[in-house]
């Protein structure tokens, strides 16, 4: 299974980006072989509105089934949730630490957006 983590850099030691829609990029981690790829976020600056929706669509296309981030807004939440993707918010530290926290059950699944739009 693939997990998308909002990241400020391109490695597993990169810090989590607390934003979802306008995150710098994503580490897409594959649990089947513990490999990962970095995916930049092209919509982060171009889009005035609806950045969360576009980013969520890119995550859906990446094949990820779970998202780890700091915060998620209402439109991104609705889009990911409609696609059946699980969202875990409140993550901090590095990508590696966040994945470990998810694995040991220390991250809670979010049932609604935790910040308003334009956060």
């Amino acid at each position, binding site marked *: 299974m693939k997990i998308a983590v909002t990241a400020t850099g391109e490695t597993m030691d990169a810090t989590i980006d607390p934003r979802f829609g306008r995150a710098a990029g994503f580490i897409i981690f594959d649990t089947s072989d513990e490999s990962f790829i970095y995916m930049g976020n092209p919509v982060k600056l171009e889009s005035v509105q*609806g950045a969360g929706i576009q980013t*969520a669509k890119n995550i859906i296309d990446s094949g990820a089934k779970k998202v780890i981030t700091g915060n998620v807004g209402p439109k991104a939440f609705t889009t990911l949730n409609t696609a059946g993707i699980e969202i875990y918010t409140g993550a901090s530290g590095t990508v590696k630490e966040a994945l470990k926290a998810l694995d040991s059950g220390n991250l809670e699944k979010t049932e609604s957006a935790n910040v308003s739009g334009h956060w």
Partner: protein
Amino acid sequence: MNIAIASGKGGTGKTTISVALSEYITKKGYNVVLADCDVEEPNTALFLNLGNKKTETVSVDIPKLNSIQCIGCSACEEICKFSSIAMVNNLPLIFPDLCHSCGGCVLVCPTGALYYEKVPIGIFEQAKKGSLHYLGGLLNLGKIQTATIISYVKDKAKKIKSDFVIFDSPPGTSCPFVETVNGCDHLILVTEPTPFGLNDLKLSVEAARAMNLDFSVLINKNDEKEKTNIIEKFCKTEGIHIIATIPYEREIAFAYSTGDFKKTFINRYSNELENIAVFLKKINKKED
């Protein structure tokens, strides 16, 4: 003749000038429409002692999906320039907050799966007092279609036979301001001689020029102790006409706060108001 009264900075006296000027020219025997376009926080009506106001609901068309008819072609998502439709699991997911009701999605849908639904976003209101006709609107809490309500108010103003239409604009230089002042015959930018007033006046001037509007500046709350203030200097350098200068007076501010400033203001500044009226009439003639 359509006159917009606007300012970059809030609290410079747009409503004071709009109300005083409307009352003044109404008393001169003209039919005047005073339209409060600050539909997020209207206050013009507070100063007019109007009776009952007639109200109408303002709605917008938002697309809804009949998923049984949808073939998942993405035509609606592709045509939407506001990202208000996202295809998820081969079905359009609609975000009403981003929709500008352009109609594109309903038009391109090949199977008729998308249809319009009326969603209320606010109200329009009007009242008449002699030959002064008040129009206004109020955007519902949580809604963002400010410009749509302003446009509704402006359309109503067009349909009323009058000599002058005065639009009391929302502050700032963003969409609500642009919607209000667009197409006006003259724009009066109300400002005050403070650095904040000057900064925002510069933004308003830039916007007015970009829109090719005929405009002038009204200096309100002027400090007469200074021989030349920062606004006068700016207008001189830029070659902008100063339509009137109103001094700062505590008494006016006090009267405003009681909701009854018109008489005091009009009596005291009848010369200034007369000058404005004469200036506007002159422009009007030129355009005829």
